[in-house]
Structure formats: C-alpha cells, structure tokens
C-alpha cells in the first residue's frame, strides 16, 4: 500500500454506498462541496474518498435511491479513558500544522446538561390543568425595563384613565423565542432574509449579529435587533435607527473572551457593502471593545447608543456565561441596559479555537439561575429583562429557562438545524454543504428563502404550541405566571450544591 500520512487514514467518517441501490446518477458528486464523491472515468462509476467526508449527510439526504449511509469509521484506537481518540487526532493534526485548532458550532463536550436534569410540575385535582385548545393562553412577552409601579391618572370630567408613568421602550414578542445573533457574512443573505421574514411573521425578533444590516432588509426593522460588537462592522446612524433594539455584544458563549474572525473568502460584494469593508478582506473583531474597560465605560456606550436612537430603542448587552456572571449582570443592569443576554457555553459559532470552545465558560442554566437570583436579591430585577441563549434545543428547554428566570430565549443552532444544518462543525471553511454558513453563490443558493422562512416560522409556531400545552399542564394560562417561578421545577440526580445554585428543590420534595 502506498504511504499515507497518519492523518489521512485516521479520518472520522466512512461513506457506505450500497451497490444494489446506487444508480450512478452523480447527485452526490454534485452536492458534496468537499469532493468526497467523484466520478471515476476509468471505472465508469461514482466512487468516494472517505478521508474527505466531513459527515454533513448532504449526499445521504439527496440520494434518490437511499443508497448512501455515512457512518463513523468503525476502526478505533486502543481503548483508553484518558487518551480518548479526539486527543490523539488533535495532537496528530497539530504536530503536522503547528496551528490553533479551529472548530465550528457549539461545544460537543460532555458537560452536564441541566435542562435534562430538571422536570416540570403538572396540575392535578387540587389545581386543575388548562386546555390550551379551549382556553386562551398568553405567550406575549415584553422585553425592557419595567417601572417599579404604575401610576394611572383619571380625568375627572370624562372619567377617562391615562397612564401617568412614562414607560421605557419595550420589545413586544408574541412568543418568548427570538432568532439569535448570526451575522450576515457568517451566514448568507438568503438566510438573513428568511430570518427577517419569519420573525416578522411570528411577531418576534431576529438579531443581525455583527455584520450590519443590508439596506434591503431595513423594511423588517421593526423585527430586527441590531448588534454593535467590538469590530463596529456596519454600524452607522441609519443602522442604529433601523432596528427595534440595539445589542452590545461583549461576549459570546461559544468563545468567551475571544474575538470574531470572518475569513476574507466569505466577504463578497454584498457583505462588503453591508460591513463597510473591502471585498475579500478578513473582518477581525477584537475580543475587547477598545472603549470598554469598565462598567462606567459600558454605561457610556449604552447611553451613546440610546442617544443615537433617540431613546426609542431598548439597549441590550450580551455577555457570555462565565464565572461571577451574576455580579457582572448586576453591573450591566446598573449601567442602564434594558436587556441582558446571557450566552451559555453550548452556544454556537462560525469559528472558534476548539480549546476555548470546549474549556471556557459555564452552562447557561447555572448562569441564568444565578443572574436572576442576584438581580432579585438586589431589587433591580424589574430594571432589566434577561434573555437566555446557548444550547436551547426544544420548547422544553425554553419553558425551563423561563421558569428559571429568563424573560425570553434566543435560538441560534436550532434555527440553523431547522434549515438543514447537521452540525458537522465546518462552518469556518466557508464550504457549508447545506448552503448555510457560506457565501459561495453556488452553495448559498441551496437555501431558498421561501422554504427557509416557512421552516423557521413553523419551528417557532410549533414550539409556541408546545409551550402553551406545557403551561396548560401546569395550570397556568400565561407565560408571565411562569417567569422565575422555580417552584414549577424539580431537579433529578443533582447534588445539593447544584440544586442550591439552580434554586430548585429535588424531585420528591
């Protein structure tokens, strides 16, 4: 056998082609952006190179005769609980390249998922459950600072009452679920348009991420949250005024303390125009904002943005879930933010150093519980809304997040999965076979915005129905009654410390 470098043969996946079913139609050849399938002229049939397969399953999905299976390579290293294969493979790669290992999407490491260790309450005879098909259910959510008390004035002559208290700007959500920040550049225009349309249709919001907002999407501004991150890409007056809210991104759950990097290959004319950078140039967002080195600096930026938007848009601050997150959140609330977004360590990303992604941050459940508790203890919970993000997988996670104290959640990875993402984790290559994390015109057209918008709207609608069902099961008819209502949660198999941090009782109590 010819010599192969060690990396070549320790690939992750194997393509299984059933010769009984394969009709050599070459659909797989055309769909594989990694060229794992190819037409072999000599053999006059479709062949494949397993070492190139990244496990995206695109070929499998489009094969008209279901002739393909993508499986993990069955051969394995000698079992060793310390030196698991992933560590060996990483070392082989780094010994070859001398570079930082890059990874896409959220961390796949086996850290506890507390959502799965929490269970919801259900009504029985003493308090009856509610049938959401027959009774009205309220999922309406408002994000923004709430007044301590509401004063109402009554006109003596007409008897008409008016609100005397001046409310700060609010975001009105029909469902407590928003599309998370994913920049135009990291994902393509078709998907940005689809998110904007789906958010508008469902009465919720999508977040531009740090990529600016393309002029043609300004019409969806009422359902857009515009982001200001450290690179300030695409930030100008019209942009700040185009959105319904402004978000300052300080940190990201997938890579806390790490900046962003959009490779030049993804910067086409449209991205260049929106980000205000030259075509083909790398867009590097530094890890720190160079005008924020303290809470006081953050306060200045918050108020600068409020000024820029004439105090019409609430300002949100997004931070990664890290140690002492509760104290940080308290500072942010006191700096004047209307919304705090906390992004847990299972949040997704287009690209992150693998070691950061897998070893830095904390799970969102713990961060959320602590932030909500701290803000309540300090008596400032009404001053900010809390949005949880980072690894929300289903409506069960959403409802548990709300019971733990979130006002709403952001969904990012789930959004991408809805349009086909299989979490193959190669977003940083720009060759996304599903046409998601790519601006290659040939690949990005795989996302038809009509289909994508429908799928995204369906997802939000489906989760909304499920949330109503679960609320009804708990005997609640409004999401407001569940917010921070930890008595509706019980832990299973958690230590006293974990229960204490989450602020919930163990099941059976």
């Amino acid at each position: 056998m010819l010599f192969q470098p060690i990396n070549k043969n320790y690939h992750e996946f194997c393509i299984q082609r059933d010769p009984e079913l394969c009709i050599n139609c070459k659909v797989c050849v055309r769909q594989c952006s990694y060229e794992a399938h190819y037409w072999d002229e000599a053999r006059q049939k479709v062949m494949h190179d397993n070492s190139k397969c990244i496990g995206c399953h695109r070929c499998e999905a489009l094969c008209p005769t279901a002739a393909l299976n993508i499986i993990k390579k069955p051969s394995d290293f000698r079992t060793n609980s310390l030196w698991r294969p992933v560590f060996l493979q990483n070392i082989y790669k780094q010994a070859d390249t001398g570079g930082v290992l890059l990874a896409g999407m959220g961390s796949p490491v086996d850290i506890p998922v507390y959502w799965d260790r929490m269970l919801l309450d259900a009504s029985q005879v003493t308090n009856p459950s509610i049938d959401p098909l027959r009774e009205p259910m309220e999922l309406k959510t408002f994000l923004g600072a709430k007044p301590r008390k509401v004063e109402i004035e009554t006109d003596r002559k007409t008897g008409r009452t008016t609100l005397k208290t001046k409310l700060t700007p609010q975001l009105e959500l029909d469902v407590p679920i928003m599309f998370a920040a994913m920049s135009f550049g990291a994902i393509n225009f078709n998907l940005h348009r689809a998110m904007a349309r789906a958010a508008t249709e469902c009465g919720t919001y999508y977040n531009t991420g740090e990529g600016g907002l393309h002029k043609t999407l300004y019409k969806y501004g009422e359902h857009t949250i515009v982001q200001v991150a450290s690179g300030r890409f695409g930030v100008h007056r019209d942009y700040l005024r185009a959105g319904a809210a402004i978000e300052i991104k300080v940190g990201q759950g997938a890579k806390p303390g790490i900046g962003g990097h959009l490779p030049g290959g993804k910067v086409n004319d449209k991205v260049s125009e929106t980000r205000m950078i030259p075509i083909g140039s790398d867009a590097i967002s530094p890890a720190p904002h160079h005008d924020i080195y303290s809470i006081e600096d953050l306060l200045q930026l918050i108020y600068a943005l409020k000024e820029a938007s004439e105090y019409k848009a609430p300002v949100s601050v997004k931070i990664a879930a890290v140690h002492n997150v509760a104290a940080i959140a308290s500072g942010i609330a006191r700096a004047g933010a209307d919304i705090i977004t906390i992004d847990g360590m299972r949040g997704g990303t287009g690209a992150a150093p693998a070691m950061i992604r897998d070893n830095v941050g904390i799970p969102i459940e713990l961060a959320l519980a602590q932030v909500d508790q701290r803000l309540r203890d300090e008596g400032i919970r009404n001053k900010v809304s809390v949005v949880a993000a980072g690894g929300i997988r289903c409506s069960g996670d959403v409802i548990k997040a709300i019971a733990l104290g979130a006002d709403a959640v952001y969904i990012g990875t789930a959004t991408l999965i809805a349009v086909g993402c299989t979490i193959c984790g190669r977003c940083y290559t720009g060759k996304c076979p599903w046409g998601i994390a790519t601006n290659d015109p040939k690949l990005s057209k795989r996302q038809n915005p009509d289909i994508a918008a429908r799928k995204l709207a369906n997802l939000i609608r489906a989760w909304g129905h499920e949330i109503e069902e679960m609320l009804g099961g708990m005997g609640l008819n409004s999401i407001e009654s569940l917010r921070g209502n930890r008595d509706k949660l019980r832990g299973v198999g958690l230590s006293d410390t974990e229960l204490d941090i989450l602020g919930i009782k163990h099941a059976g109590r």
Partner: protein
Amino acid sequence: MKRVYPDKEYCIGCHLCEVACITAHSRSKDAIIAFREERTKDGLTACKKVFEKGDICVAISCRHCDEPSCVAACISGGLHKDPETGRTVYDRDKCVGCWSCLMACPYGAIKRHPTENKIVKCDLCEGREGGPACVAACPNQALKFEER
C-alpha cells in the same frame, strides 16, 4: 395554461429533476431499473436538461410556447399544439427524425433520442397524479408548475 417554470436563482444543479423525469417516463417506474436497464437497453432519457455555467444552473424543458417554432418547423405533423390543453404535443409515430424541431427550438428543450431516430420532449408528465415529476422532486422548489 400551467407550465413548468425554472428559477435559476435557486436551482442547485443536483439534476434530481432529470432522475425524476427518467423514472416517470420509464416502464417500470422504478429509478433503479429505469437507470440500470431501460436507460441502456431502450435509450430512456430525460426530457429535461440542467444547463450549468459557473455558478448559474437552470433546468430547461419544453416551454409549451403559445406559438411554438418547433410545430412550425415540423415537416411530418409529429408536433402539434393541442388547442384545448395548450400543450405542444408530440406524436412519436409521425416523427421522421429530421431534427427540424430541434434546430427551431430557441430553448434547446428538445433532445434526440439516443438510440432511435426520434426526439424526446417534455409532455408535462401527462396523466401523472400530482403533476410533473421534476417539480415534485426538486429539493429547492426551483421548479414551479403554475399558471402565469
């Protein structure tokens, strides 16, 4: 009349429409048998073709034009316009294989039969439940069967 309209914006060049076309026009209606046997033995071929150039691709089949050049060019009466359905209908028995229609078609939507002196052309999957097979098979809705 309802026609198949291709959308080059969202055609992903997978050629699944061709696979669907071959299967729908096969005797077996089975993709594997159609590809393996009928294609090689009987010269079964798709009546549509995906044209590709760089990033652009588009699936072309007979447009069933209101005033079809192919019908005007046909010397044998093998092609005619059905006044009721509006379809450009092909009569295989009358076709003499002169290729006049092939040259006249401005879309390049008529093909030569690979083994016989006949042409291959879209019949909009006449009689097929659910309309043309290519439209049903397109994974990205880049083909639409509608009245415009």
